[in-house]
């Protein structure tokens, strides 16, 4: 059945109801509400975890709150990554939970320099977006040599040079075992069990309690057969790779397969489909002919599509920043909780050290708008007051036609902030994209409107060229 909201009462009844506050909530009911909203974890309830008498209750609650897609941990000694753990097929039904991590590959034929370069790329990749840092997540080490010793050496070298979690990629159990031998304190993801090696690979996963991917490109029955077999053999952490096909032959197959597997997990409670899905846009490097740029272009598009269609982990190859930029930003968007708008509070922000003749500018309260405008003003060293009007967390270009950039909202902020006491002039600089509202804003606020630039990056230039309260009062009166 599709995911349905669980009643907090139902959860409350199972909880110890001691109101011990050890979870940080005021009482067990408040904790129950957070639990059903996926805003906290059962582990925070100390009594139910620690006390034997609640064992049954814990089992019941775990079952009740368990996700439709199994959650799997991949660990290095210092870092843990979770994949899967999803409850819903569409983010608007609740929210997505664990942003799909992105792995970049290293192969065991690469030189040490090249390997270090790739580790550095992943570790130093960082893009700042609305005050958050967007990063890459882990490394996938591939055995190209098919030589256990060589693979082992490279795995060892990589693990000594990074604290990132790892994926070990080979279809040869001997090679896999050699790689594992140098990772005693980690929980790497094993890639992959196939119809030819499943016994040996499954044994490695079982013996070492490791998560393992089953791989059957283009043959979904075999994929299910492998998942079923390994799960019956006692392996609990399984992930599915139905094959990432790029281009005319198979793109459709790949997207449909990911979608249908997730459908069965979320709507039909199908446990075999309810494992995390592994996307490998890296296959663009095999399937796409031509220049490197061409391969990277398709790799990125594949990543964007797979991210949108249920992939819980991506393995990629490119070493260009642009390949990953739309992917990490879209991932952030997609995994943003749709129940909360990404907005900042309306009001007046003081930027720099504004005086009574400093400019007053207006923008919306979409978090991204605010952070970009703020950054641009700061980097241009403009001292000013920034009026944030409530656009319901929508960007200015959409808020204007959407009637969410309202003169009344601006007037409200001007009034409550008593900005008219802080500045002598009565001029508002509004976004160029809100130009058509100039008249309305003047009527409602009683302030004169100056239409600012289309993009906030031009604010410093605009202010230095156009802002002169004295001259303005000559033109407009006041």
């Amino acid at each position, binding site marked *: 059945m599709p995911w349905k909201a669980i009643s907090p009462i139902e959860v409350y009844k199972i909880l110890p109801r001691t109101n011990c506050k050890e979870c940080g909530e005021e009482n067990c009911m408040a904790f129950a509400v957070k639990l059903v909203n996926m805003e906290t974890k059962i582990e925070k309830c100390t009594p139910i975890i620690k006390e034997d008498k609640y064992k049954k209750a814990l089992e019941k609650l775990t079952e009740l709150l368990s996700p439709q897609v199994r959650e799997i941990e991949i660990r290095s000694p210092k870092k843990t990554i979770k994949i899967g753990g999803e409850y819903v097929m569409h983010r608007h039904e609740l929210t997505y939970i664990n942003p799909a991590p992105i792995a970049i590959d290293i192969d065991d034929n690469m030189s040490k320099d090249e390997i270090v370069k790739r580790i550095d790329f992943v570790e130093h990749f960082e893009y700042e977006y609305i005050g958050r840092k967007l990063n890459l997540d882990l490394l996938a080490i591939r055995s190209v040599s098919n030589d256990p010793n060589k693979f082992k050496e490279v795995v060892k070298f990589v693990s000594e040079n990074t604290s990132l979690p790892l994926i070990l990629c080979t279809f040869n159990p001997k090679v896999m075992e050699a790689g594992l031998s140098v990772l005693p304190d980690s929980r790497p993801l094993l890639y992959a069990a196939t119809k030819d090696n499943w016994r040996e690979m499954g*044994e490695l996963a079982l013996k070492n309690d490791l998560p393992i991917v089953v791989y059957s490109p283009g043959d979904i029955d075999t994929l299910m057969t492998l998942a079923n077999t390994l799960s019956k053999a006692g392996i609990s952490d399984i992930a599915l790779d139905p094959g990432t096909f790029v281009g005319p032959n*198979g*793109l459709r197959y790949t997207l449909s397969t990911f979608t249908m597997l997730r459908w069965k997990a979320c709507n039909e409670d199908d446990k*075999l489909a309810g494992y995390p899905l592994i996307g490998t846009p890296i296959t663009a490097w095999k399937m796409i002919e031509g220049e490197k740029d061409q391969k990277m272009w398709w790799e990125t598009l594949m990543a964007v*599509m797979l991210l949108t269609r249920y992939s819980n982990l991506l393995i990629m190859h490119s070493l260009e920043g642009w390949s990953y930029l*739309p992917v990490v930003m879209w991932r952030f968007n997609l995994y943003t909780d749709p129940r909360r708008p990404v907005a900042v509070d309306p009001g007046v922000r003081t930027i720099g050290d504004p005086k009574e003749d400093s400019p007053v500018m207006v923008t919306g309260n979409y978090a*991204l708008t605010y952070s970009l405008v703020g950054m641009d003003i700061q980097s241009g060293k403009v001292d000013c007051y920034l009026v944030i009007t409530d656009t319901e967390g*929508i960007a200015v270009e959409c808020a204007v036609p959407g009637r969410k950039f309202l003169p009344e909202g601006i007037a409200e902020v001007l009034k409550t902030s008593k900005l008219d006491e802080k500045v002598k002039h009565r001029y508002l600089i509004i976004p160029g994209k809100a130009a058509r509202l100039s008249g309305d804003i003047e009527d409602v606020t009683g302030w004169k409107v100056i239409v600012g630039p289309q993009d906030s990056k031009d604010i410093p230039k605009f202010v230095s060229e156009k802002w002169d309260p004295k001259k303005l009062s000559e033109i407009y009166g006041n």
Partner: protein
Amino acid sequence: MLKELLSGVVAVEKDKEKIKNKLMNDLANLLGNKLLEVLEKHGEFEIVLEDAVIEVDELRILIQPSLLRRMVEVPAVEEAVGMAVTELIETKFAEPEMKWDGKIVEVNMGATPSEGGTRDRSFTIGGETMPPIYRLLGVEEAMPHRPVIAMDVFDMRIPLPKSIKLHFDEVMDDPAEWAKRCVNKYHAEMINLHLISTDPYIKDTPANEAIKVVEDVMQAVKVPITVGGSGNPEKDQELFIKISDIVDGEKVLLNSLNLDMKLEDIAEYIRNKDCIVIAFTPMDLDKARELNRKLFDYLPRERIIMDTNTAGIGYGLDYGFSVMERARLAALMGDKELQQPIAAGVTNAWAAREAWLKMDVFWGPREIRGPLWETSTALINLLAGADYFMMMHPFSIETLNKIIDYLMRFSPPDPGAIMDWVGSELG
């Protein structure tokens, strides 16, 4: 003893290498080659343990290391120890049984001479009975008509990102030439003309003058046309009324009608014309329903496309995507107020700075970032259910068209093409 073995396993895990080197020596010294043969033949734990019962003191010491090694080195023994399953359990994947009650309305855009117009082609969009890509085999229900891409043309020179401008710079002062370039050079399926100069805050071009541009463009190219205004509700209303007079018979799209307009005037006026309207609402499903409801009073459903508003990656696409996806799912589940085909203004992707700003060299040239942003944004909209795309960059459009091709027909994958990606040199 079993406990010891298990603790021994851990020791072996940590120190496999050392033990491996000692393997042959140990065996020779402790058991001799014969016993090794026996072990290899049977490979059974129990047998050895039984022996151990007989000569417990000696064998405890003697056999343990070799047993451990066998667990590590010989798969046959491992199976007996660990995997309870020795054969594959054949399992079939059953395609889900899905029930969708709704169907998206089919809308025809453009009219050929045989259809009463002068266009050289016309398009049908909509008709879906399930979300896109929801079938493993067979594409008809999931994508019955090919989504259509229209290229943007403006009635005046406007600031455009460099990577787009380089394709149109010489024709940007002449909308007809601009449209021709889109069709002749970049194979545009449709033209999406924006009469933005009519904006009272831009040039305030009178409606009578602006409609001449529409005539020019319709003369210059023979593909179906969409005409947009400036977004000023009063001016657009006046403009659309005039346009509907001169393009009757051509099934032109008007971009767009919204809740700020006096629909009782404009929708009533075009009731007996044949133009299609794009119903625009700002990422709000209730408003989308409300607008459709109001339009249904005047226009047949076959003349309404809805634009639930979209944005570029990083600039509100999360809202746009979810609103579109919700609209489409609701429609297919039977919500008659949302069963119109969906238009996506993917050009909005260019509002993202990452698409046009010169950034640190690490992030690569904007000439790649721009089209990549627009293409990615388009693909996300395609997966949410968009039927009609408004776009700018020729390379984005070319790529999206290719992907639509790949999705429209089922071509079985060739597992061999990627089977060994793990072991391949990728360059």
